[in-house]
């Protein structure tokens, strides 16, 4: 998260400054890849790439603070991931267990997931029910608040809060049960 520097970076990037755009990209892309990696395993880079193309197309018209920008980017990514999931479902059904398998397999996005611990916690999140996994990622990885997440996933803020709590309790419980600190 760029914090106070975001406004200047955004203004410079909207004026065509590539360095400023790169700064924003590098700040958002790791979280974006991790989010998409769980939603669309095996297609993270493609979906993230499509997301950035759409972001670039509307970049000049964006007006808002950093949290709103991230919410916008992750909303686009979610739509692309949903589209990917639908097209994938038409071709073949992929069990949810395949998510963990894909997370441990080589992927072009592995440069972002270089740490084993990072990969391990992603695997744990991927083992959660889909809505809980997504909400945790949006809250923790994307850094969005409950209201933003509720808008993105189309649930009430109360439902988002409950799902997030259940997800964290389950993750902590699994860690306690296995004796592994995630």
């Amino acid at each position, binding site marked *: 998260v760029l914090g106070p520097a975001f406004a200047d970076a955004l203004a410079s990037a909207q004026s065509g400054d590539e360095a400023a755009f790169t700064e924003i*990209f590098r700040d958002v892309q790791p979280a974006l890849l991790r989010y998409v990696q769980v939603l669309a395993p095996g297609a993270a880079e493609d979906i993230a790439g499509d997301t950035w193309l759409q972001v670039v197309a509307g970049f000049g018209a964006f007006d808002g603070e950093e949290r709103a920008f991230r919410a916008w980017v992750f909303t686009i990514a979610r739509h692309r991931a949903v589209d990917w999931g639908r097209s994938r479902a038409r071709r073949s059904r992929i069990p949810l267990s395949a998510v963990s398998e894909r997370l441990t397999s080589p992927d072009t996005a592995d440069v972002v997931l*270089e740490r084993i611990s990072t990969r391990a916690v992603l695997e744990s999140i991927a083992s959660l029910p889909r809505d809980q996994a997504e909400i945790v990622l949006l809250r923790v990885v994307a850094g969005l608040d409950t209201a933003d997440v509720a808008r993105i996933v189309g649930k009430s803020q109360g439902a988002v809060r409950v799902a997030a709590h259940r997800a964290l309790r389950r993750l902590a419980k699994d860690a306690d049960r296995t004796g592994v600190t995630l």
Partner: protein
Amino acid sequence: MSGSDASSHEMPGFPSPSWPSREPETPLLDMILDGQPLPNDAPYGVHALAARLAELADPAEPGALPGEAAALAAFSRAHSPGSAAPARRPAPRRRDHLLTAGRARLAAVVAAVAVALGGTAAAYAGDLPRPVQNFAHRLIGAPASRSAPSRAGQQPAGHQGHQPGAGTRTGTPAGHGHRAAQHRKSRGLARRKHGPGSHQLRPAKPGSSPGHRGSRGGPAG
């Protein structure tokens, strides 16, 4: 320490079915979700969970990231001088439609003025078809149709090209050659009962009109 007081971390060998009902834990979970620092007395497992989740939000290692080159290329294209993509705050699409509609209206007005001017000039030059020429005569005082006065001696249109001054129009679509060809064609049409141009081109008195004769052998006169 009783079992109900011990956390799952303190007694890792025992399952903790009471975990979901521990309402006091909820503020800790909210702290994790909000990225806030946890109190020191929070269970170790919660600390560990918070630390691992925080790693997910960490920035990547220095250097180019996957997809960075493609995203930068798209950004550069969008901001290149010749790009059609707007660099900043594009105008609403509705405005484009309005501009297009305005241009269409302007083009229509220009075309109408051009047609009006051209039509007026043609009317004063006597180049319009006879009914139109007569209408222009009544409306704006343009010369009447040249063949209008001699109703009894209506001539084929092709003969108009041989009137004085008409030679200058030779070679134009309204010139003699074209009209003569039209007349030759009309002879065949005149034999039909419902030929669209036969009535106008057929001589009022077949066989008596000099124009009709002339149409066979070329310009009369």
